[in-house]
């Protein structure tokens, strides 16, 4: 469903992403862990077509993001870390506008879909207020609704729980699991290791633009059992070791 092969992204002389490859299957939640500046956001931006890869390829449902961008874009949803939203629209108007740009003929009625997403993310009461009056968490929730509106096969989430209160974060996590269970491939980045540990089916640890460890939580615990018993211990041990080298 999502296939990233030998992805390289350079900013001038700086190599932000170095030869990254991974696959995410339908129904799987793949967590991208890493320090600030490790290359997580750059990887996701390259996967979504916001950045051009220096080399390598990204295939979404078999469509290449560079050569078949329209087909690829029809099949994913994306929630950026700091989304710029249209402040002069209400949340509902924004979702209506977004829904019109996706050519999805066999989806359930779009108004019902919007209502159910708003309800699930506890946004129904605020949907008719202008986005400029929203808090950071509300902005994130409305972006999340927009990303899930067209039932995408692949969902990219960049720090999706940042700014959410405990109850909204729980609702969001439940939603991620639900869409994955329905068959979507979910890729998300996070700094919160507990979330990754509880939610992800597989984890990739990124360090200075490279995936330095990959596997299910159990596989990682087994492989790095000398480092400790939690994902936090494993993550810190791997990154510290790399730091020293």
């Amino acid at each position: 469903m999502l296939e990233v092969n030998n992805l390289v992204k350079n900013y001038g002389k700086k190599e932000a992403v170095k030869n990254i490859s991974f696959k995410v299957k339908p129904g799987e939640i793949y967590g991208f862990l890493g320090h600030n500046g490790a290359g997580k956001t750059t990887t996701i931006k390259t996967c979504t077509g916001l950045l051009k890869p220096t080399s390598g390829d990204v295939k979404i449902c078999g469509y290449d993001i560079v050569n078949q961008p329209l087909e690829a874009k029809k099949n994913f949803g994306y929630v950026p870390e700091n989304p710029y939203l249209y402040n002069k629209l209400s949340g509902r108007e924004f979702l209506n506008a977004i829904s019109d740009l996706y050519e999805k003929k066999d989806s359930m009625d779009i108004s019902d879909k919007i209502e159910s997403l708003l309800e699930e993310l506890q946004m129904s009461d605020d949907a008719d207020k202008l986005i400029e009056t929203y808090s950071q968490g509300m902005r994130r929730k409305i972006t999340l609704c927009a990303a899930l509106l067209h039932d995408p096969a692949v969902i990219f989430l960049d720090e999706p729980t940042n700014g959410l209160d405990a109850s909204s974060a729980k609702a969001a996590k439940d939603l991620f699991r639900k869409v994955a269970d329905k068959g979507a491939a979910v890729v998300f980045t996070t700094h919160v290791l507990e979330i990754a540990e509880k939610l992800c089916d597989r984890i990739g640890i990124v360090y200075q633009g490279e995936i330095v460890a990959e596997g299910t939580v159990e596989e990682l615990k087994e492989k790095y059992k000398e480092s400790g018993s939690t994902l936090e211990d494993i993550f810190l041990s791997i990154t510290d070791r790399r730091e020293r080298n």
Partner: protein
Amino acid sequence: MNYFLWFVKLRFSFLKNSLFKDSNTIKKTLSIALVMVVGQIALTRILYKTVFSNIFIMDEMVNGLLIVFFFVAVTWIYLISFAQSINAFIQNFYKSPDMNYLITIPIPFNHVFLFRFLEHNFNSTKGILFLFFPFLSALGLWANAPFTYFLLIIPYYFLISIIPSVLGVIISMISLRFVPAKVFNTIIPVFTFAINVSFALMFTRAQSISTTYIIRIIEFFEKPWVSNMIPPISGIKLFYSSIVTEWSLLTFLLLLLITFVLVVFAFIISKKWYFEGWMRNQHVIEEVAKKKKVRSNRGSSFKSKSIIVWIETEWKMAIRNHEMLMGSIFMFLFFIFAVFTLTYSNLFSENPIIGVSMLIMIASITNIMAISILFIPAEIKNDKNLWKKRYWLLKIMPVNERKIFNIQCNMFFIPAFIISFLGIIVYSLVSGLSIGIMILSTISLFLVLYSSSAVYVCGELVSLTDFFEQYAFFGNLATFLIPLIYGVFSSGIVTLYLAKDFLSQVAFLSSINGLLSLPITIVISVFTVIFTFVVSKLVFEKVWRELQI
């Protein structure tokens, strides 16, 4: 602690870092400064050559006419500064991003107000002066002003604009205690529009002011205490006295004193009212009428419908963008002003088609820009980086570059066309043009304006590329200059050809005119329109494909 010095130091550090941080920044700053100086000199020369050098009057009338020109200039400074400070009040004083920080640090609120005011006045002076400086300099050249006059233009402008600015700010601060921000935001654009239109009307009537009134005004100026107490007249006298080198210290000191008193008054009242207003405006929640739940009807017409739906969404946002309305009105003023002038002056009564062609040219240069301003969210007007980020959503959507181009082009073109069409029809009806000519004019306007919209959206996108991001000033300049050049070649050339007889006195223009014949003019005009559209579309599509956010 001296808060004022703290603020000056802070701004100085900010300016130092943004203009002179390293050798590359210094080079960039110097090259931009050079371009600006050359541009201002060129504009001054053009204004002098095309407008002022053609005014031949007797020596004894020069002083009277100078007063009329300064009267117009100072009135405009007052209107613009007053309207700008009211219009930008909520955005600059209450919603500025650094307010949340400034309010939390131990600085008295009235000092925060003073910082904001100085910053606002400095920025609005900077924004407007590029228009005023060439006008006032060309006037100085015409009147053989001494060098000191040219040096004093900017300080005088800044000083004169403080009073209307502070008045606007006081009125806004008081109004927002009684009126909700939503009502304030609705009333203000109507008010500023009325101010601008009345100024346009006044200017078109300026030629009919009888000499008796001019003499009376001059006599009034000679009563020192009375006239010096009226700030706009002090402003006129300051400019005037620096040209005729009759320095009026009393005028200067009184203007300074009145300015100081007003700023101190605003400073005192802001101690209580500014913070209260800021508090009230933190919780403005605008509810939008709930959209009726409709069953979605998605069929074969969806592809073309999605363009219309997205354009409608963009218009919805533009209509609610009250913060930028003043800028838009200001740009429209050129067109409104031209319509009024041509309609009332009977300048081309013999051949009104010249007027139509001139209006099409002005519409193609200014009206698309005027409309586009409404689409710029207030929070990103000063940050090109955010501007680029605004496109993230369209960039990840399954919409191809051709569709994006159509959306962008039409969302500017349709409203600009309607407004331009109305202006041209009013002028055509008053001038008694035939229906056939009106239809031809409408078709020409449609084609010229559509390409103008295309070149504008293309320029806007190109200015977000890496090169122009590094040299933002040149990017901004290009978004203004390219439509200007397009306007000149697409319809300006037709005006030039038609106005052959009127321009015989202007050597430069009549020499170009000598090269033009009807077929050549039509070929150049049509070629410019088609070429511009095709190239803009191709460039836009390529840049969109390459755009990285």
